[in-house]
């Protein structure tokens, strides 16, 4: 139900890093930009950047090497992919179903639409 057009900055930072990991911009065991790097790059408060990075550490996507910085954990890309697949189901599919309900499109019609679309590719 919630459609956040404007996510909090720390969430956006988190997703930015995640996307970079998925895209191979950041590889496993590589150091991610520091809070100060991010603050400078995006003109945000370092504490906000730190919050975003902190969440990624909590989720096991990054790990901290004291005194050196934050690094991409082993298997991070896979973790992110699985997480986003789950989100895809929970958020986007649900939105699809809600909008379909609003428009009076049945589940069968949706499936038919998808199959038709696939045939045309």
């Amino acid at each position: 139900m919630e459609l956040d057009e404007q996510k909090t900055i720390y969430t956006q930072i988190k997703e930015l890093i995640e996307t970079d990991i998925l895209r191979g911009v950041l590889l496993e065991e590589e150091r991610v930009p520091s809070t100060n790097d991010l603050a400078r790059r995006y003109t945000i408060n370092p504490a906000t950047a730190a919050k975003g990075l902190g969440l990624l550490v909590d989720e096991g996507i990054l790990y901290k090497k004291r005194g050196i910085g934050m690094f991409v954990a082993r298997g991070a890309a896979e973790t992110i992919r699985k997480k986003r697949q789950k989100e895809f189901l929970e958020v986007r599919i649900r939105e699809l179903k809600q909008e379909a309900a609003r428009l009076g499109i049945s589940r069968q019609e949706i499936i038919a639409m998808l199959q038709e679309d696939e045939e045309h590719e």
Partner: protein
Amino acid sequence: MSKLVCKGLTKHYKDVEALERVDLELESGKIYGLIGRNGAGKTTLLSLLSGQAPATAGEITLDGAKVWESQPQLDRICFSRELNVSAGSGVGAMKIKDYLKAGRIYFPKWDREMEARLVGLFQIPLKKAIAKVNKGMQSMVTITAALCSGCEFTFLDEPVAGLDVVAREQFYKLLLDEFASSGRTFLISTHIIEEAASVFEEVIIVDRGSILLKEPTDELVSSFRQVSGLDAEVDAATAGLEIHHSQQLGRSKEVTVRLAPGQQLEAGHDVDVKSLNLQKVFVALCGEE
């Protein structure tokens, strides 16, 4: 960690109650945003906190020691206010280089290297009198003084007044750079809210002489929702929640609500839900009479 604290701070001018029993605690190592409507009391608050004007009541302490007329405390606080050059005041006639020189003399930690760098970056005409340069350049002078002061607690009052968008962006970057390398506390009052929001770790809202709230920016902003749709649906979805703003046009209704921690909108209603940004939150909180 240092704390600049005021308790029961009150300021009455002849017939105006500018501040009424304000309690505030500022910690070192943070960037605070100070927002409020014109006349809310922002400048008065900054002026009192930095010991530049006497309070009618209440006390201001830095790490427990009184700030008023106490040089060791005053050395740690810098208030760079908007230069008021009207009425032919002394400041207006001063040459910019003399103004900066005064700063160099009075602030024990003045950074001469940064001064040279910023004068070059902003192309500040040192030989000109303050009143003879435009508002934007005056802002750059106050910004330079504030950043070079090296004070642990630095207040800036409307620092970007008169600056074009490129200069403003330069300012935010300089501010963050200085913050990153020094960990100084900055308290910045501004009317250009949304632009600066990402820079503030915490936001302090002043409304009619008192502090409405002081909260981390992210938490504050993410607790607000704008709910719109059919009026009956909107009412049902927002039942029992803290409503700050409500607009109705025919059967369409738009409501701004604040969610307490753990609270949620009632599910299962056909409504559009949007997040707000800091500017919109501020207008929702202080916009109506």
